[in-house]
């Protein structure tokens, strides 16, 4: 496998260096369209005719689609293949297969995420320059729910360009004008003579033709694939235990490694009391300190490596952070809400005048959330091979082949080795949620590989290492204030959040420079409520540093700010004596798209119908990642405080839906993920270290806790938005609002409940007693 993938990578790269503009055609209208996209011209590779960077056709007619985004459960390989199939005019069936490309072509760059614009909308010299710079990196990453809206235009254009090339090849073969030809079912047809040629028989000729500059895309009315529920291409293997995740990479002569990292972030290894003994343990071939911060045991099997690592008696050097706790960080957070010097993200209208006007009815509330971690089912791992000649190859369940390469270079550098080349293979990801943008495990594996040149080294973190060495969603606190006018609606809205900057922390780990932590937009996203008609508003943030690494986590700032803001809007509605849906309806008077989503979820939930005692309903809405989602949560709170999340009704407007079943699945998963965080999750810092170690003390929802979920998608002809994350932000406030509705108690701190164990591996959520 490695050899074939390597060869293809070489071919792609080689062709790219030839420097032609394959997918110039792909680009269409905006500025991104007019520049050379650095993809390869068509070429023939064995039995494959590669028509462009996104697709190849085999002699047997099979179509192989290159999707430069990571499949981590969101179904992106299927959705992207559907886009190509639509434009290539082939049925969406098992003649299609999907691969993650190995070559790091600039055309695979995620412009949408980094420039915050759809490629087809990109215009202006700044975006042009940004696109060129990012293409040089190239910044290939899966995240920010951006894959569909970022590749919506390029993938369809790639399919359309290929179809045009096939038509041109068919015209030449048949000696007729292109205008007399049509396509269907993988054939080029000449109706007048009844002749037809299969794509597979034309592909080699087509690969030698120049790609069209601006291939026309099918109109909505002609779509046969987009918008229809299609079975996922990755599921048949997944029900047979066949897919290769990072943990499943097996290579000849491979070594296995286990690791122990400094319990306190930033800590270092002072010494090992029993190094000689561990080196003699069964199967152990090496014990190494990595970058001063961790110890790895390398052995001939992972079980031997991990068993030996469990016996390590490591002295960790004390650090200043050893006195830090969640309690002390909470004090700092809440203190920052009152401190000066906050960054102002947004200021509209005359806030103080509005507060003066509405001073008789001022609502104010303070909220707080803890650190949380991803707890991907597949723990962090990477496999790296560095050969004697300096060439390197890496395999990992990563969200980014770019950070995979950076990680190899970083780790090899610790060993004084500079790889001459790095080929990265992106495997299936066993959960990601933002965690797999990081290259920590990759760098560690690369360091070990540099010590064992010529042998692949697979490093796998134990669950305990994974739990205690995450890149966490920041803890955060916020204070929100509103002055209500005579009609009960806010005339002024003032939001202040304190959290640790995500962009500063994440980029500081991978780049030689990091953006200022102050004014990080990811700290404040979800607070502005721009779709609500409020005359004056202000959004501010404070950066509160800690020694913890902060990382991307499903929906980032929205994961806490929407809890704050949508809980608060509910508090405003109740203070005004109004129904929470009716209140939001009035606030959405200038936002018809949002209003439609709210109205629909209210109908779906039977909002307003009577519930038995002890039950409650809560609503919340958010626009994030270019999509709008509203949810109604239904809870039951028993006399002893046990809270059960019975149902979540979800309505989403994600624009045009590519694969409805995948979007629904993402909403379902987002709801379970968000509800788990809302009711159960906390990462606690004690003496500078993470206290939780495994699923017994970091409980998550299981089948018994999970709610019934009903999802409905709004029909739209607007371009697609994101789907992987927008379902998460509304869950926590919807649940908190439902608990308030059921009990009259307003809970302003996550997790909302205490998790109690009931029997083997089962839990229940119980509300804390009210402070008397």
């Amino acid at each position, binding site marked *: 496998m490695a050899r074939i993938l390597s060869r293809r990578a070489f071919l792609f790269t080689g062709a790219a260096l030839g420097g032609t503009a394959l997918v110039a055609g792909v680009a269409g209208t905006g500025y991104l369209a007019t520049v050379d996209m650095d993809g390869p011209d068509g070429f023939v590779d064995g039995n494959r005719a590669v028509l462009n960077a996104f697709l190849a056709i085999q002699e047997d007619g099979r179509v192989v689609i290159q999707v430069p985004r990571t499949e981590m459960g969101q179904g992106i390989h299927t959705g992207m293949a559907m886009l190509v199939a639509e434009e290539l005019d082939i049925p969406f069936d098992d003649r299609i297969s999907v691969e993650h490309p190995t070559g790091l072509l600039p055309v695979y760059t995620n412009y949408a995420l980094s420039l915050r614009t759809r490629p087809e909308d990109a215009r202006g010299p700044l975006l042009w320059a940004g696109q060129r710079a990012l293409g040089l990196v190239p910044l290939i990453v899966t995240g920010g729910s951006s894959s569909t809206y970022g590749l919506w235009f390029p993938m369809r254009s790639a399919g359309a360009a290929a179809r045009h090339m096939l038509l041109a090849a068919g015209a030449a073969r048949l000696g007729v004008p292109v205008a007399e030809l049509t396509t269907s079912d993988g054939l080029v047809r000449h109706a007048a003579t009844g002749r037809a040629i299969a794509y597979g028989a034309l592909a080699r000729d087509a690969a030698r033709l120049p790609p069209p500059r601006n291939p026309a895309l099918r109109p909505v009315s002609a779509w046969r694939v987009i918008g229809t529920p299609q079975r996922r291409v990755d599921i048949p293997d997944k029900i047979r235990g066949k897919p290769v995740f990072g943990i499943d990479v097996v290579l000849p002569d491979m070594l296995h490694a286990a690791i122990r990292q400094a319990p306190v972030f930033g800590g270092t290894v002072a010494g090992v009391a029993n190094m000689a003994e561990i080196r003699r343990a069964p199967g152990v071939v090496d014990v190494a300190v990595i970058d001063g911060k961790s110890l790895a045991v390398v052995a001939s099997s992972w079980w031997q490596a991990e068993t030996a690592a469990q016996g390590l008696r490591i002295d960790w050097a004390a650090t200043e952070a050893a006195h830090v706790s969640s309690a002390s960080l909470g004090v700092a957070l809440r203190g920052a809400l009152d401190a000066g010097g906050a960054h102002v993200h947004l200021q509209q209208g005359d806030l103080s005048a509005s507060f003066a006007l509405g001073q008789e009815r001022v609502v104010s509330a303070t909220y707080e959330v803890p650190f949380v971690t991803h707890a991907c089912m597949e723990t962090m791992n990477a496999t790296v091979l560095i050969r004697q000649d300096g060439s390197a190859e890496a395999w990992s369940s990563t969200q980014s082949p770019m950070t995979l390469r950076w990680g190899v270079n970083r780790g090899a550098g610790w060993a004084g080795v500079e790889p001459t080349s790095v080929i990265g293979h992106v495997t299936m990801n*066993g959960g990601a949620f933002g965690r797999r943008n990081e290259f920590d495990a990759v760098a560690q594996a690369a360091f070990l590989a540099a010590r064992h040149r010529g042998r692949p080294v697979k490093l796998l973190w134990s669950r305990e290492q994974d739990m205690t060495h995450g890149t966490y969603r920041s803890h955060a606190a916020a204070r929100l204030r509103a002055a209500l006018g005579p009609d009960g609606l806010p005339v002024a809205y003032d939001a202040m959040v304190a959290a640790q900057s995500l962009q500063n922390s994440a980029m500081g780990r991978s780049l030689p420079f990091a953006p200022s932590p102050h004014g990080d937009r990811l700290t404040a996203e979800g607070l502005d409520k721009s779709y609500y008609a409020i005359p004056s508003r202000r959004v501010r943030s404070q950066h509160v540093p800690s020694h913890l690494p902060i990382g991307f986590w499903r929906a980032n700032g929205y994961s806490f700010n929407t809890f704050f803001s949508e809980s608060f809007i509910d508090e405003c509605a109740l203070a005004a004596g109004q129904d929470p849906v009716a209140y939001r309806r009035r606030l959405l008077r200038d936002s018809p798209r949002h209003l439609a989503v709210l109205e629909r979820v209210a109908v779906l939930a039977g909002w307003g119908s009577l519930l038995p005692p002890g039950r409650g309903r809560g609503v919340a809405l958010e626009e994030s990642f270019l999509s709008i989602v509203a949810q109604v949560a239904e809870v039951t709170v028993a006399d002893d405080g046990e809270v059960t999340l019975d149902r979540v009704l979800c309505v989403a407007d994600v624009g045009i839906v590519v694969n409805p079943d995948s979007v629904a699945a993402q909403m379902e998963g987002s709801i379970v993920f968000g509800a*788990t965080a809302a009711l159960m999750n906390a990462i606690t810092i004690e003496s500078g270290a993470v206290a939780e170690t495994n699923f017994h003390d970091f409980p998550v929802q299981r089948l018994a806790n999970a709610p019934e979920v009903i999802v409905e998608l709004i029909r739209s002809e607007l371009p697609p938005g994101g789907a992987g994350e927008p379902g998460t932000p509304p869950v926590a406030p919807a649940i908190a609002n439902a608990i308030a509705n059921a009990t009259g108690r307003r809970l302003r701190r996550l997790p909302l409940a205490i998790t109690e164990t009931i029997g083997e591996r089962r839990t229940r959520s119980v509300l804390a007693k009210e402070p008397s």
Partner: protein
Amino acid sequence: MISLTVNDTAVRVSAPPDKPLLWVLREDLGLLGPKYGCGVAQCGACRVLIDGVSTPSCVTPLAEVEGASVVTVEGLSGVEGALSAVQQAWLEEQVPQCGFCQPGFLVAVTALLDRNPNPSDAEINEAITNICRCGTYPRIRRAIHRAAAARVQG
């Protein structure tokens, strides 16, 4: 050497008797379907059938399965790879997202339906304690009921 049957094939393994079955399957027998998720019988990603009983293989020493019949996710399909009723229901409901935990669910549900062909939701909640971080639970519940119905008819 320890002898056992894995997916209907007799095997002899020369691994330490205290090596967990999970790592014997993955490292000595090349069966990568069972997954490491927690190492402490919390998550269920490693579940296999041992003489028909769903068991977390990460805490089961090799010595304990001497002479036993072990079935992994790879062994759930019938002749010529025909999907089992549980696998077919998983396909119909499009259950997996990332798919990492699903081998353990498929095994646990197979064992459940073997001993209780028509489980209630409460019985499902009691029996299926695996973890899925992608949150496929609503589909898993539907798929269990679908598989139960198919097995009754089939």
